[in-house]
């Protein structure tokens, strides 16, 4: 081993770097922007189409959402969510959280269409910008 010590150290340094990044990813699962390997699995990129979320999100904007949730039942008001409504994927913003006997529901609005509202259950949410 002493004969190959420089080779060993070079390999170990590379291994240690990867090792540390993976462990960091384990510790900080979806708490910050994707700066490491562990968070890559959470990424959910979407491309905005249509004017429903203007002026915040224009058509064609690339948006990096996260599909890892800390607590799906407890998303704050104002979170941008990607959700399914009758099999159609839509992008909206949480306006209100409703707690009923059957469980938690969210009232989702869309910035450019004040009249339009959806009431969805947390299970319909695929991804959000909540980190």
């Amino acid at each position: 081993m002493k004969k190959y010590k420089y080779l060993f150290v070079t390999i170990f340094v590379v291994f240690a770097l990867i090792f540390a990044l993976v462990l960091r990813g384990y510790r900080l699962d979806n708490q910050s922007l994707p700066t490491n390997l562990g968070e890559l699995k959470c990424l959910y990129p979407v491309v905005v189409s249509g004017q429903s979320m203007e002026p915040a999100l224009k058509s064609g904007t690339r948006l990096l959402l996260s599909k890892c949730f800390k607590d799906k039942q407890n998303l704050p008001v104002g979170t941008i969510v990607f959700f399914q409504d009758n099999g159609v994927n839509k992008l909206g913003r949480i306006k209100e959280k409703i707690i009923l006997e059957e469980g938690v529901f969210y009232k989702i609005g869309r910035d450019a269409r004040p009249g339009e509202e959806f009431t969805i259950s947390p299970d319909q949410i695929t991804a959000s910008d909540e980190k």
Partner: protein
Amino acid sequence: MKNENVSFILPFLLWVIVTLAYAFRSTLQSAGFPIDPYFSLLYAFPVILLILNKISSADMGFRIGKPLYGLYFLLLLPGILFLRYYFMGLQMQLAANWLILVVGSVAEEFFFRGYLQSQFEKSFNNTTISFSLTNFLFLLVHVVKGYSLLSSLMTGLIGVYFSFAKDKSGGDSLAYSAGAHSLYNLVTSSVQRIGVNL
């Protein structure tokens, strides 16, 4: 020959175990582990090796060394940091967890500057390699801790300063690097950061 191999490879192996202990620290503690696994391993490994006579206390840096140099290293960096915060007009108040900070800092010095650095020094007979390797591993532990890329790099550089405090070309004793590390951590944790983005 075999013994040589073991003493060469052991520091790397122990670093891996220590890093794993840090990463699974909260998991272990919530599972009922009675003491902090990270700090206890940082103390335990060098102590066990000392008892088994695999390393000597002279390697670890248990001596008076050069007090004048030592005092310089002890006060320079923490002093600069303190004056910086002082002239920025920030409120300073001794951190509530000061004891843990001191114990933790001494533990890290014990393992990194005391054990790893002296072993690398022996293996490579080269201060540059031993300093950079020790502080690269020190940096990576802070990457696991969740520091940003920039502050991790800063810890690597500050680690080189601590390495000089322990090395025979500097303070020549572990006491100075451990003291400097503790003071540094105390100053950074004692400043009131509310509303100020440092």
